[in-house]
């Protein structure tokens, strides 16, 4: 179980650069579904055929990261954020490029007040001595993710990219553990969620399902002095009621709640005040698609030390299987 999660979280797959993670997921699931395709944006769509209800399950594959925008004469890199990168969380972190090059993120020393920190005053040091040397290591336009090893400690997982490789893990496991059903299920591993819920929109348009269920992460309110929120790590998977991008369809919420009760797993209700997720674009696509989500409670979302409970993740798998079969 943990090995697969570790494999998925370890891959560099920044928004718009999902090639490797897509291949890894494809390898895992291709023998368990009837058809696998990739669309123009790069969404991976796996179909389990049937004559019943048409269900779309979506988990985004991408993660936040950075893109190199400029290389200076001394070999330092300037960069842009891809997705919601915190400037403060980034200081002192390592980033890793697809080719394995690692860099240290730091900021210009002349900065008088840390409050004035902007990305344009930060840089990445890859140890190059000159522009030429740096250019042999990375190019303008190359992307890197933050480094954060995946560790299991008791029931707790600490890792980068639990947002949303933990969701990908849940969907991959659900595909493997699928029960007998007549439903036609489209498992979509979407792209570019972190930069504006983009992949889910085009995938939903082409599938045009009866209902959609996303699997993603949510924030929690269980850390010292945290913003109040009725979700905690280890309290079971959360069933989304709303976030900034969507008010979940009551039928989908009911389906998920009833499924959780039927298999007797703990669950929580999620009201997320910040952030959006794939159902935000799915529910407004085509003629409107009833949408909802199963969310894995994760602390410190968008940092390299995202923290979750393995039992929540495993219960999310059971909940998803029960809901779609």
């Amino acid at each position: 179980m943990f090995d697969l999660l570790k494999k998925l979280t370890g891959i560099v797959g920044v928004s718009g650069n999902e090639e490797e993670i897509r291949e890894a997921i494809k390898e895992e699931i291709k023998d368990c579904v009837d058809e696998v395709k990739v669309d123009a944006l790069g969404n991976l769509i796996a179909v389990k055929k049937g004559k019943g209800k048409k269900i779309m399950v979506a988990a985004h594959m991408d993660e936040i990261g950075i893109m190199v925008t400029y290389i200076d004469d001394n070999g330092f890199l300037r960069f842009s954020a891809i997705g919601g990168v915190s400037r403060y969380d980034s200081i002192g972190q390592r980033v890793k490029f697809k080719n394995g090059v690692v860099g240290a993120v730091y900021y210009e020393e002349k900065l008088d007040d840390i409050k004035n920190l902007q990305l344009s005053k930060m840089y990445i040091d890859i140890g190059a001595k000159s522009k030429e040397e740096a250019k042999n290591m990375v190019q303008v336009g190359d992307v890197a993710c933050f480094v954060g090893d995946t560790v299991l400690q008791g029931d707790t997982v600490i890792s980068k990219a639990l947002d949303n490789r933990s969701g990908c893990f849940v969907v991959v496991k659900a595909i493997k553990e699928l029960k007998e059903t007549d439903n036609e299920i489209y498992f979509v591993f979407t792209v570019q969620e972190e930069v504006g819920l983009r992949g889910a929109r085009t995938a939903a348009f082409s599938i045009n399902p009866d209902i959609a269920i996303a699997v993603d992460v949510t924030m929690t309110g269980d850390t010292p002095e945290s913003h109040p929120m009725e979700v905690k790590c280890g309290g079971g998977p959360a069933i989304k009621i709303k976030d900034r991008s969507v008010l979940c369809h009551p039928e989908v919420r009911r389906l998920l709640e009833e499924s959780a009760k039927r298999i007797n797993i703990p669950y929580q209700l999620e009201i997320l005040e910040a952030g959006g997720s794939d159902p935000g674009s799915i529910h407004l696509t085509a003629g409107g698609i009833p949408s909802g989500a199963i969310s894995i409670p994760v602390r410190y979302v968008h940092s390299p030390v995202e923290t979750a409970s393995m039992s929540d993740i495993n219960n999310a798998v059971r909940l998803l299987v029960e809901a779609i079969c």
Partner: protein
Amino acid sequence: MLIKELTELNGVSGNEDEVREFIKKEAEKYADEITEDSMGNLICYKKGTSSKYRVMLSAHMDEVGFMVTGYEDSMLKFASIGGIDERILPGKRVLVGEKRIPGVIGSKPIHLQEKAERGNNIKQKNMYIDIGAEKKEEAEKLAPLGEYIAFHSLYTEFGDGCIKAKALDDRIGCAILLEILKETYQFDLYVCFTVQEEIGLRGAGVAAFRVNPDIAIVVEGTTCSDVPGAREHEYSTVMGQGAALTIMDRTSYPNKKLVEFMCKTAQNRNIPVQYKQTTTGGNDAGKIQLTRDGVVVASVSVPCRYIHSPVSVMKREDYESCLKLVKAVLDEFGSDENLIESFCV
């Protein structure tokens, strides 16, 4: 002179009629079929000779400007349409409405300003447009509520191949696409002149839905900040260094294979090309990419300094590089049947 004619037309977002009529007249000479959709996008279709693909090119016709929102005595109060830095406004010349009534943007004279006021930028709400009217009634008659207002700025050539004009964003793209229309290609070509880009990329998505292309290239005028006060890593593009390809911006992450292919094509044919260094801003590619089940997109731009102002500045050679690059890429699309498909994963 196409660039002069196009930039001296007024077409503030939502009021693109003048520009559309001009482009239509030009395009009619070369297109097989021209459709004007319900939003006002102009879709010029050019039948291909063989290929099964549908290629969309897109440039927006609209420009930033203003609208009359009220009156203060004989002066007009106004709102911006599109992103305009209000600090550049005082002292600028404008043209109001179809009749092009001349006006100037005014504000309280400096000697009447309080000390505290002098230290701050004048807010747009404290500015007005003076059209020389004596009474409110006269102003209302000359410039009714809701009337569109455009910057007044004549096309001027100066320096070594520099051009100053308003609305280079994106009449320069319109000029390039009108040139492209003159030739025939293997594939079906849809050259789209879109509306309302400056207020939220509104026309392009609708046009793309109708065209349903396999691939789309957006041709733009983009920011150029190679000026004093900016550090080199903050330059978005550099004037004179050629067509600018977008790697990523706020609205789209163009197809990487296509962008790389366009860059290589430029290099192979000795066409000056550069990558846009900053990732802020957005353009029609964002909407087109997400239309229907997804479209392979790229955007290529002419660098324009002082964009969204009446004195945008570009270099003619960048326009030529951009035109050459679009032509070269279309040429490559035509010579290899499977090329377009190869950009999809």
